């Protein structure tokens, strides 16, 4: 018998925008529309959300990123439908080039798939430290029944076989082949071509009832339950006699976060000791996993700040960011394409933020590949190391005049990082809170979507009081 698999830390992330359901309802001539859902600006997607959550979980774990043996990533829509999604995320998190893992995709069950895959690898001894990330940014068909609830978010767990705050226990799976949400080849949006009543009465609730009976027998104290449309979650909870699920707050703030939903719901329950049933649903499958928390799991307390932030966005802003509403005309190429020679030379410095520290004078040169000689002393002896991801704005501008696909206003800041490196970066958001002396975090963002290819790089995100809390909470837990 191997050691039970432990959760030593968790992390959560959400995009910058919240779309009020009433905006969507009004657009389609419907009355009402309750609540809100998280939505990605043009520079966020499943990859950037995954990186944000993963780095928070790793910070809360206190572990160095290079000892992670594998990354298990679950998302219903990888950024490259076929391409280097997993390797890009691993590089951005700073994992070793020798790390393993898997990409689980294709339905909202993918987050649970990733958790199971990682747990089995740890249990089997093929990974000592496994990183699980579930992220999604649902792009609903315009006018679909679940559009108002379609959200975005990410959750990450760090698993080991050592002493952790929580333990993974029993798991139950039920399959029921049925096509509910659907997205085919060449389709941008997820469609609802099913009958909602048929799905609810003959598929979703029977599966939940069956699964729930098994899990209820294990004296579960709280639940993370799927709620794809804003009503099914409550119906499932009623079927199980579960009361208000721990996941309800996540759904209320972020909407349906797809593959990330079961893990985010779990994080909501893991800031106190107890037994949580984590249930995921999608693609005709449902799985429940029991998690026993002996004490609050490091990083779980950071969820409140993630749920509490975000600015209200209009429906048109969201449609534009989702590439549903497109500007006419030519756009300029604006970033380093992933298929270019420049990325071959510079993947580590572009995605992993590698800098070159001069052995003779200590100056950090970025990026290394264009600095065979130090900018300060001319030496050619360097040590490559990741630059600090936090710093202070030395000077900045807010650019109002740029060609498409750039969106004005765009802040650009010269930032002095904690390790002494100086970089210049785009600023995430509209730059309205930017000042000389502003504290910023370097975050992975999608710079562009060029010729159908996402292009990634780092931006400076100005710290707000809320993100300060998150960072402070992570620091406290780390200590």
């Amino acid at each position, binding site marked *: 018998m191997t050691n039970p698999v432990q959760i030593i830390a968790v992390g959560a992330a959400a995009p910058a925008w919240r779309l009020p359901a009433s905006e969507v309802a009004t657009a389609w001539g419907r009355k009402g529309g309750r609540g809100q859902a998280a939505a990605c600006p043009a520079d966020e997607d499943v990859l950037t959300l995954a990186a944000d959550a993963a780095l928070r979980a790793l910070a809360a774990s206190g572990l160095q990123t290079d000892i992670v043996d594998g990354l298990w990533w679950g998302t219903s829509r990888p950024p490259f439908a076929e391409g280097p999604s997993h390797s890009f995320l691993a590089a951005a998190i700073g994992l070793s080039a020798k790390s393993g893992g898997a990409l689980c995709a294709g339905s909202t069950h993918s987050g649970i798939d990733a958790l199971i895959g990682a747990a089995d690898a740890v249990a089997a001894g093929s990974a000592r430290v496994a990183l699980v990330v579930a992220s999604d940014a649902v792009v609903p068909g315009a006018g679909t029944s679940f559009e108002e609830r379609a959200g975005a978010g990410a959750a990450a767990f760090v698993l080991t076989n050592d002493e952790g705050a929580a333990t993974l226990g029993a798991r139950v799976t039920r399959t029921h082949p049925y096509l509910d949400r659907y997205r085919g080849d060449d389709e941008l949006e997820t469609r609802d071509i099913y009958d909602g009543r048929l799905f609810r009465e003959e598929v979703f609730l029977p599966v939940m009832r069956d699964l729930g009976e098994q899990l209820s027998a294990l004296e579960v104290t709280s639940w993370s339950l799927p709620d794809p449309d804003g009503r099914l979650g409550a119906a499932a909870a009623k079927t199980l006699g579960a009361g208000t699920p721990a996941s309800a707050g996540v759904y209320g703030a972020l909407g349906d976060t797809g593959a990330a939903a079961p893990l985010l719901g779990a994080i909501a329950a893991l800031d106190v000791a107890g037994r949580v049933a984590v249930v995921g649903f999608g693609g005709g499958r449902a799985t429940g996993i029991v998690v026993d928390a002996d004490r609050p799991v490091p990083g779980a307390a950071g969820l409140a700040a993630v749920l509490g932030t975000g600015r209200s966005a209009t429906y048109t802003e969201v449609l534009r960011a989702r590439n549903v509403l497109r500007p006419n005309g*030519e756009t300029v190429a604006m970033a380093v394409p992933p298929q270019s020679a420049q990325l071959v030379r510079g993947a580590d410095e572009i995605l992993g933020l590698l800098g070159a520290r001069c052995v003779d004078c200590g100056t950090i040169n*970025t990026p290394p590949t264009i600095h065979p000689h130090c900018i300060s002393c001319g030496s050619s002896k360097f040590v490559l190391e990741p630059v600090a991801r936090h710093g202070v704005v030395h*000077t900045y501008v807010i650019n109002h005049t740029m060609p498409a696909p750039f969106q004005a206003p765009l802040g*650009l800041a010269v930032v002095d990082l904690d390790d002494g490196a100086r970089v210049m970066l*785009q600023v995430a958001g509209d730059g309205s809170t930017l000042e*000389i002396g502003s504290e910023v975090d370097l975050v992975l963002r999608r710079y562009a979507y060029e010729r159908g290819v996402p292009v990634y790089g780092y931006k400076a995100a100005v710290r707000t009081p809320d993100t300060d809390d998150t960072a402070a909470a992570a620091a406290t837990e780390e200590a």
Partner: protein
Amino acid sequence: MAWNKVAVVGGGLIKFGELFEQSYEQMASGAFDAAVASVDKGFDPQLVEAAFVATQRGTLWGQEGIGGNTVPTAIGLAGIPCTRVENACPSGSDAFRVGAMAVASGVHDVVLVIGVEKMRDKSGDEGLLARAAAGHPVYTRGETAPVLFAPFATRHMHEFGTTREMLASVAVKNHFNGARNPNAHFKNEITIEDALKSAPVCHPLHLLDCCPQTDGAAAVLLVNPDRAAEFTDDPVFVAGFGVATDHPYLHEKSTFTGLRATTMAAERAYKMAGVEPGQIDCAEVHDCFTITEILDIEDLGFVEKGKGGVASLEGETAITGRIPVNTSGGLLAKGHPIGATGVAQIVECWLQLRGQADERQAEIRNGFALQHNVGGRGSGVSVINILTTNR
């Protein structure tokens, strides 16, 4: 003691502006004709032994591969040696320096330096704005031209209390001067209020803090000083020059309150010419943005570091001020056809030193005028030429 190994005997430019009706070749021909016509004792174009042409960005009119041979044919001198000089915004001033070295070396006695730039053939997003793809090679994108200078404005305001009114005063002065220059792109005077109320382009810079995109061409004729008397009794000499480079990206700068390339180029130019900043009677400096002129007059030693904004607001750089700057209207009002800019600045200095600048004439006391450009990636190239009437 000034270098004085080269004499300038002619200079001219075409009227700058949105010259949709003129080809690159027609602009070049117009500038050459103007330079020839300016020579006091007449000038036979066939005397030109070699030419140096400054064009920074042929792609703005769809020509990826322009070289030296475009201009000789356009000006009726097919066959002469001609070399294209490209060195970012200082391309024109560097072509002048290269031409001067060709004369001083003794290889050529008569050299044409000509700057030609078509900025407006390609519209909007296909034009200069498409440079937004530049910037830090992996981190930054969105770096349009104002992004090269606006961070300096933000920091200058932070450290020295420079205000938007002080920036605006540079635009007001240069538009005043441009209104008195028949070859300027803009000939309208503006007020501080106009500048403050203009649309934001790249905070803290607004529209009237920025130079326009301008088509234009300018030319000067350089000769061996021993032969200057064939052409004029009032030659102007090249007293000295200085060139310097700085790191090519903004994040590599150690300071955002000055441009190191300018400071270093100035040291070299002053030393070569044997002059102090206080001996300069007037200067044409690179005012692609209002903040740039404020940095320039500090970096060139005309005012103390940090006092450029106050000096501008108080009129020290006006035509009647202590050190007249950009009497031509500068890039802000005369326009900034990149390759032509430096050459046109030389023409203005030549006119000023010879007392031919009409209602924008500055008082010439010591006989020295300074021409300056700065630009390129990270504003990392500066070229300065100093001219003198002193023999």
